[in-house]
């Protein structure tokens, strides 16, 4: 059962990645990267790695904040 859940979450991650690659707005990319990070955390938890999940949770927040700070000084729109 966990495997199916993992597969579904992975599919979600793949979808998010595609959205990031093809997106036109960097802010949206960054925000859905935050979601990506959250899904990853869930996934790690399901796989029985709470330590890694904990770390990923913290890191996900921090790196998203980093990204957003950077976005302040660069153009949001991309081709």
């Amino acid at each position: 059962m966990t495997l199916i859940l993992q597969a579904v979450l992975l599919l979600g991650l793949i979808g998010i990645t595609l959205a990031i690659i093809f997106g036109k707005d960097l802010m949206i990319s960054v925000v859905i990267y935050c979601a990506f990070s959250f899904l990853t955390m869930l996934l790690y938890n399901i796989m029985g790695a709470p330590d890694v999940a904990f770390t990923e949770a913290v890191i996900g927040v921090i790196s998203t904040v980093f990204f957003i700070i950077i976005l302040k000084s660069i153009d949001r729109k991309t081709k």
Partner: protein
Amino acid sequence: MMTLINTFLADKGIYMLTLLLLSLGVAGVIVCNNYMKKLICMNVMQVAVIFFFLCLGQKSPGTIPVAMDTVVKASDYINPLPHGLMLTAIVVSLGTTGVGLSLLLRIREKYGTIEEDDMLRREELMTRVEKNGGKRD
């Protein structure tokens, strides 16, 4: 049906999806025109590898690797080694992201753009200027 899917997933499916994620990440790094997106894709790539390692450590009846009792049996707990390794890998990825972001900021300041094709054009121009001894043609 359920067991069939489970067997397939356990055998190949999860690995396939992980590798797909990895390929997407690598492809993103190569294809994306925007340096910021390249950086995000780089993170995706690293997550895929971390995921791959954690897959290796799964054990179907096992619980999380925190000992509940003083006497432990190996088959009761999930393999802790990949977790340890991947903690390191995550930290490294955070470090790389930080460095990448600061480089990005710097590039934006020096060149005014973070798009690959603009950059290439600008670099070509700079090379030509350098060749002409500082004069623009």
